[in-house]
């Protein structure tokens, strides 16, 4: 009877193998699916004497073909990719603002200084003076516009930060749930393969928001911490991430981590989208806004100071042309209620003298005090442009590198874990052949049995 049983075991083992092949084939296009292979093992109970053929075959395990190193590499590449993508998009935002023709400060300065040059021809003429006022106004609105566009970009970043925090928290919850399911399932000896796939995918998503340290335990569950080692998921405990309300302000990127009832500041480096947003704000947006504010303040102060040394058409001492709020000079830069007559273009007091207008026009070519150092207006603005250009180019290069690195990591992971349809087809043929062969074995055993029966 052992021939029946051996054949049957082969039949069953190959049936299971075909089920696995079917499962692999069915999930061929599922992203993150890890292929499975069947490990078959020969069964020998022993004790059948010298002529024992053995006791057939069994499925020792259905193995998930994965390599933790490849998975970790893919996750790290994903985090890096998200960081550099967010950073690049943020830089392109600033770059676009600076590239807008209507916001070009250089052109604004050109127009302002040109109107002053023209005013030197007849400094007493209200036509020229009104033109100076109009161009000063348009220059101020270029400053306002540039700043408000940059603030828009920054607000957009802050909104994506809110979204990233929200999804981070729900993903952390998901990881904790998956941990729990894996722990339960593996305790009961159930198959945890699909849960592990889900966990890997979840961790990939999670690391887009924030950089992760992942510790995989023997039962398949994970413990998560930030790059600086602060706990995110440990056992049943899950951290909640939120903005640090004590810092406040419109552009807050300080995060706190609430874990087991304790709140601590989330340390740098954060990594992922959240890290990119904080770095963009601190390393790019704020310094650049400071630079533009410095230019606005330096320019307005210098113009007002020069005007103060002159006399207007009524012979009165010069009034300020520009006014601003010192908290945000560029976005608040505007004209005072000065009239065309009150522009103090005269150096000597004679109405036809344009000494002050000439002195103002000369600001185009000489250094003035900008942000604590002597710089030319145009140079200071060009410097911002150059810096943003270089930083954007750098961000694009980083993004390209990260793209290559993630595609290599994906290739490495897929090479190990993804499904190959030809391979599955070959397996299916092989298992089908084996299945049919075992059928033959059983039918042969049956014939042998019949032969024996018929001999009576």
């Amino acid at each position, binding site marked *: 009877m052992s021939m029946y049983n051996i054949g049957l075991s082969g039949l069953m083992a190959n049936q299971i193998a075909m089920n696995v092949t079917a499962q692999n084939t069915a999930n061929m296009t599922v992203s993150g699916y890890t292929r499975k292979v069947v490990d078959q093992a020969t069964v020998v109970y022993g004790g059948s004497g010298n002529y024992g053929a053995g006791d057939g075959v069994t499925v020792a395990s259905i193995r998930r073909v994965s390599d933790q190193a490849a998975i970790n590499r893919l996750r790290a590449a994903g985090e890096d990719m998200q960081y550099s993508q967010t950073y690049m998009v943020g830089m392109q935002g600033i770059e676009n603002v600076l590239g807008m023709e209507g916001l070009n400060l250089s052109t604004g300065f050109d127009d302002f200084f040109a109107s002053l040059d023209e005013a030197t021809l*007849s400094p*007493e003429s209200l036509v020229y003076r009104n033109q100076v006022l109009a161009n000063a106004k348009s220059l101020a609105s270029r400053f306002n516009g540039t700043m408000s566009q940059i603030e828009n970009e920054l607000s957009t970043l802050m909104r994506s930060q809110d979204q990233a925090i929200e999804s981070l928290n729900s993903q952390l919850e998901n990881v904790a749930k998956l941990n729990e399911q894996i722990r339960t399932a593996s305790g009961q000896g159930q198959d945890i393969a699909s849960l592990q796939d889900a966990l890997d995918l979840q961790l990939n998503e999670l690391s887009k928001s924030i950089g992760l340290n992942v510790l995989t335990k023997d039962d398949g569950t994970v413990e998560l911490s930030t790059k600086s080692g602060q706990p995110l998921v440990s056992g049943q405990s899950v951290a909640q991430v939120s903005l640090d309300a004590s810092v406040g302000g419109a552009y807050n990127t300080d995060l706190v981590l609430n874990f087991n009832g304790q709140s601590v500041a989330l340390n740098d480096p954060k990594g992922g989208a959240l890290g990119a947003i904080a770095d963009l704000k601190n390393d790019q947006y704020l310094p650049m806004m400071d630079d533009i504010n410095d230019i606005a303040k330096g320019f307005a102060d210098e113009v007002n100071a020069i005007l103060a040394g002159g006399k207007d058409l009524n012979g009165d001492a010069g009034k300020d042309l520009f006014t601003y709020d010192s908290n945000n000079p560029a976005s608040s830069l505007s004209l005072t209620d000065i009239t065309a007559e009150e522009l103090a273009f005269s150096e000597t007091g*004679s*109405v036809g003298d344009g000494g002050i207008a000439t002195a103002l026009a000369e600001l185009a070519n000489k250094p003035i005090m900008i942000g604590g150092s002597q710089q030319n207006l*145009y140079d200071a603005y060009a410097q911002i442009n150059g810096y943003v250009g270089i930083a*954007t*180019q750098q961000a694009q290069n980083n993004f390209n590198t990260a793209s290559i690195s993630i*595609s290599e990591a994906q290739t490495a992971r897929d090479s190990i874990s993804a499904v*190959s*349809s030809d391979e599955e087809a070959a397996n299916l043929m092989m298992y089908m052949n084996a299945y049919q062969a075992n059928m033959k074995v059983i039918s042969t055993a049956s014939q042998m049995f019949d032969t024996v029966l018929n001999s009576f």
Partner: protein
Amino acid sequence: MRVTDSQFSSMMTRAMMGSNVEINRVAEQIATGNKINSLSDDPSGSMKLLGLDKTISSAEQYSRNIADVQSKYTEYETYLMSFNDLTLEVHDLLLQANNATVSEESSAGIIAELESLREQAINTFNKKSDGVYLFSGTDVYSQALVVDDSTTPITYSFGGNADHRSTKVSEDGTMNNNFTAEEVLQGSLDFFTTLDAAIAELKKPTADKNDILGAAIDSADATQKSALNTVTILGANFNSLDRMAVNNADVALYAETVKTDINALDYAEASVRLTQSMTTLQASQTVFSTVMNSSSLFDLM
């Protein structure tokens, strides 16, 4: 190495994406005609472009300023030349009047003509343009020449000042855009006082007639020379403005040329790149669809 289905399709998708990115980039360059379409395309090039734009716009502004100053000069030149002619006429009339053979009638004609010329001379210096006095320096609302006819003889004084207004005509140079009465007359009002004395003498000749008319003739002579001198300065300034305008045009042209070198797209090179990328894309698409449509082992079962 194990190659899986997903690997193949993601590799091909990436390759096609890469070609599309390049095609998009070339298409943008061709559409704008510029190599640099955002700061990050070439940061140092972008900074140079900003600097060149400044150079060009300054040069254009200086050219406009020069044209404005020259148009003022043309206005001044007209009045100065007419004053010059006028002094010559005064000079000739006085010479004629000083001739002993002049009859009473023609003497009266000369007096009338001299008085008219005197009025014209005063009017010339008190010319207004756009509501302001041309020859009164920076004190543009005051008459350049103040005539007080309540006194005998009439007294003359300069009403404005001798200050100049200057306009920027180059990076580091400015040019005066006005001429003052004091400058033209070299600070002396003798032309008018001696002329008045001569007219009075002609009306009621005395023994000093020759001396008085002689003084007026000398003064008219000197004034004509100094007016001509001012015209000469004006002409010299005008010429140097012309030279500056040419310089500015050269600077702007040079900057434009450099800009073109940095930013202008080489269409031939761009179209080669476009063709290359499109060929690559087509090849990738062909490979992708051929491989995807080729029979898999499943088909053979």
